[in-house]
């Protein structure tokens, strides 16, 4: 008796069998974008796996964090590989998450009935950024220390709750070992728990509702004409696996040829080194805040900047409810332009922020 039959006999897998046998993926010119979500999910898996291995040696205290990472990359067998994979995978993950976000935005895949899938996806994107921000400090090196100081300082500029948020994040008025402990707890317990639950919800929605078909493709179909489908299993899933392998190859090459520098240990009493800037995915926001005048219409510039970014984040979460044309299945040029502007802003300000002094 096969194991699957043994399980089937006890749990009745006929529902699952039926789902797997009949699930299809729409076939059209834009189907390539479907793979981005799977690749992002795969990288999240890599993060969990490498993160657990790093946890075996990492010590979350100001006195030992840097040394423990140094130990991992020098003394632990393949420790360098695991640490480099974790760092590179984190960056690729956020890059792919942004690509997935924009592909869904441009294709209007958020439209009815997938509003909740979009909302859960947006929350996951914010969680990925929180993962990046909290993880950046953990090696307790100079760049991370001062970048965290700047980053938490921006959080402190939030009107009304800013000071409370800053103290909550830092565990005091300044970035210290208490901040490291908090970021560690956030990075390895709180965020993974929330993310896992949200990923489950997001996947459940995707599986339940199937892949969204772009409005343009849908409108070209004659009434009653079915869209060609590709079986999810094994045709689509094998393509997904192929994409994951490509990601593994890229990750391995990056880890071997462009190892993530550890830098020098953070010294809270050292002067702020030149060129302090956050990770690339925060550069656009950081540079924009730098450009905002100190006062705009009597309001403190930094406060205004943070409020505007907060409003943009809320707007993005609410996009499916605001884009009424898309929800009716009609082309929605305004939101296409908004997505294009957003993409242009992010790319250009990230580049400018990178080269700005």
């Amino acid at each position: 008796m096969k194991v699957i039959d043994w399980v089937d006999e006890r749990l009745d897998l006929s529902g699952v069998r039926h789902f797997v046998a009949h699930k299809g993926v729409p076939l059209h010119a834009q189907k390539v974008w479907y793979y981005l979500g799977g690749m992002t999910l795969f990288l999240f898996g890599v993060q969990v796996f490498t993160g657990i291995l790093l946890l075996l040696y990492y010590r979350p205290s100001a006195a030992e964090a840097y040394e423990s990472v140094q130990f991992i990359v020098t003394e632990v067998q393949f420790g360098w590989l695991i640490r480099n994979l974790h760092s590179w995978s984190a960056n690729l993950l956020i890059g792919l998450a942004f690509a997935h976000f924009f592909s869904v935005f441009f294709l209007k895949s958020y439209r009815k009935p997938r509003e909740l899938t979009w909302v859960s996806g947006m929350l996951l994107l914010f969680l990925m950024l929180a993962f990046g921000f909290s993880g950046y400090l953990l090696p307790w090196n100079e760049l991370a220390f001062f970048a965290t100081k700047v980053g938490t300082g921006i959080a402190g500029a939030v009107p009304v709750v800013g000071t409370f948020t800053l103290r909550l994040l830092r565990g005091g008025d300044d970035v210290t070992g208490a901040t490291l402990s908090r970021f560690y707890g956030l990075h390895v317990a709180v965020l993974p728990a929330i993310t896992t639950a949200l990923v489950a919800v997001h996947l459940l929605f995707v599986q339940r509702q199937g892949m969204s078909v772009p409005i343009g493709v849908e409108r070209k179909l004659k009434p009653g004409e079915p869209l060609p489908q590709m079986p999810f299993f094994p045709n689509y899933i094998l393509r997904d696996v192929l994409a994951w392998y490509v990601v593994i190859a890229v990750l391995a090459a990056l880890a071997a040829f462009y190892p993530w520098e550890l830098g020098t240990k953070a010294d809270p009493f050292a002067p702020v080194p030149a060129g302090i800037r956050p990770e690339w995915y925060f550069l656009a926001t950081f540079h924009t805040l730098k450009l905002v005048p100190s006062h705009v219409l009597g309001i403190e510039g930094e406060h205004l900047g943070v409020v505007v970014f907060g409003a943009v984040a809320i707007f993005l979460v609410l996009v499916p409810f605001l884009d009424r044309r898309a929800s009716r299945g009609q082309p929605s040029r305004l939101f296409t332009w908004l997505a294009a502007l957003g993409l242009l802003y992010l790319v250009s300000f990230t580049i400018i922020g990178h080269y700005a002094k």
Partner: protein
Amino acid sequence: MLTSHAPPTAPPVHSRAVLARPALAGVWVLFTLLVGTHPLHAQATPPGANGCVACHATQTDPRLATPAALFTQPDVHRENGFACVDCHGGSASSTEAAAAHAPAQGFKGKPAGQALVATCARCHSDASFMRRYAPKQRVDQAIEYAASVHGQQLAKGDHKVATCANCHNAHGIRRISDAKSPVFPTNVANTCAVCHKDTTRMAGYTLPGGAALSTHQFSDYQKSVHYAALTKGNDLSAPTCNDCHGNHGAAPPGVGAVTNVCGTCHAVFAQKFAASVHQPIFDKGCVECHGNHAVAEPSDQMLSAGAGGACAACHTAGDATDKGTAAAVAMRTGIERLKTGIDDSGSLIRRIKNAGIEVSDEQLALREAGTKLTLARTEMHGFDVARVEAILADGMKVVASVDSAGQKGVSELRFRRRGLAVSLGAILIFVVALGLKIRQIDRRDHERRATL
């Protein structure tokens, strides 16, 4: 204008404070009788009483107007409540010139030479008086000055020499910690040079040995490593004229004392030199090899009896019988070997660091080797070859351990790249196989759909 520069409303000291104590009042009377004028006369003048400035500021003769103008600028005495009459005597409250400048009012005019020194010393040599204004300030300047070449020449009636005002200014005197003060460390050499580079003024002056006193000390000093450290490196502890010659007791250190002067800062070098074979031979100590005012940045090239070497003055290059030459060659060879070792290991470590190998420990070890090199260069001043070589050998051991770690790093890099190549090869094979499988499945599905 006058009111804006008026003395503080609460003068720091007043004689009544002293007179209030009966015992001190007795001393006061006795001292007044003995000396006639005394430091306590020179305390802060009551506010609003400095009519001298008001009148002198309106004078057309710059000799009369300039002191008043300078006194209203930053001036440590005015800022502490002192006025013109505290040094010049006279009456600050008289509106008539004759009454203001009356000898009966104690008017002394412009003190010069010994009178100027005495005027300054009235306060600056009185410890109890100075304690009220600058408790940490020394009060032996006048004694030191009297012992200086300047003071001795002045005592002989030579009025060309510097007195207090030549270095500190007479009016507009700034604290020595003020960067604009002529005696602030970065300005001292320029202040001394006003006289000492003036060939006309210095004509006729000689060194203790009888040789004419040169006037190129300042230009020599400007070429020195000390000048560069002070003016370009902003290192205010770097020596300028007064650090070697003394300030108020200015005089050349003299033969035999140079090592002590240099040893004030370069203590370890002086200690090594004091125990060396050269100590009894070198009359001018450190100056024999390093020079005096134009002290150049020391280099390993100096340790040579060949061209450009400091040893060449006494030793002969290539002379096998010259023990000094042999010692210089041995020490220099060892130093160069360690330098090359550190450079080579440094390049290796940098190379593997750039490739992603963690090398903090090796970088730390290389710094230790660098310390050994510095120690060897220091020990060299004792001219004991065996001691220098022992330190160099320790340095070479450190370099060897770093080299070994560097080679392990190179092997690790090779292993990583080979591992990557194998992994990528395996992934490629899998991807190709998967691609073929997908095509096969797609073809089968297509055929199945075609048959339906």
